[in-house]
């Protein structure tokens, strides 16, 4: 399987704390994307980092990428209860007819008040 691994599988923090999720993958990539999924809902795209980038920011999100280690991390700063969700990294492979996402195993984040 080409599926990536994420750790931790579950993370519980208090509001205001930072949350860090890690993703490892197996193949060469064009880019890596992070998605969020609220319970029982579809996925929402958060951020994309290209293979030639090492770090990217978007609001309270910070993503790093280390292609030599085939790993990425997602940092959510100053977490809020509304950040409670599952977070998936996805490696992207373009076939010419589609951009195929291969998702990691996901991290379930619980932010408590």
């Amino acid at each position, binding site marked *: 399987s080409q599926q990536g691994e994420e750790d931790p599988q579950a993370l519980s923090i208090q509001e205001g704390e930072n949350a860090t999720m890690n993703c490892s993958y197996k193949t060469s990539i064009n880019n890596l994307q992070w998605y969020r999924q609220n319970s029982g809902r*579809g*996925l929402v795209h958060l951020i994309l980092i290209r293979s030639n980038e090492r770090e990217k920011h978007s609001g309270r999100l910070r993503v790093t990428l280390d292609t030599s280690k085939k790993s990425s991390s997602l940092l959510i700063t100053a977490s809020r209860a509304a950040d409670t969700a599952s977070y998936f990294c996805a490696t992207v*492979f373009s076939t010419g*007819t589609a951009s195929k996402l*291969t*998702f990691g195993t996901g991290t379930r984040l619980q932010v408590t008040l």
Partner: protein
Amino acid sequence: DAMVIQNPRYQVTQFGKPVTLSCSQTLNHNVMYWYQQKSSQAPKLLFHYYDKDFNNEADTPDNFQSRRPNTSFCFLDIRSPGLGDAAMYLCATSMDSSSYNEQFFGPGTRLTVL
């Protein structure tokens, strides 16, 4: 608002009884995808359409079929659902095949097989 819509949100079927799940999009995207997501697992791509061209993943069971009658609509047909097919089915779109495009997901249809 432009979006991806899935109907129904919840579907219950009996073992072996064919079922069809529906997806529509107002984004006018070329590519539509169907994913299967089992409980506490990552979404897994079943197949995709690039315009009218159908592309099946190698490990997608023959039990799963798809139709895309026009740009806006795409259907997932499960010919003979088994208990192992109970899952969330997610439809997604992307503008084209560029790897730098994000995918837009619908809310999903949760399928229960009795």
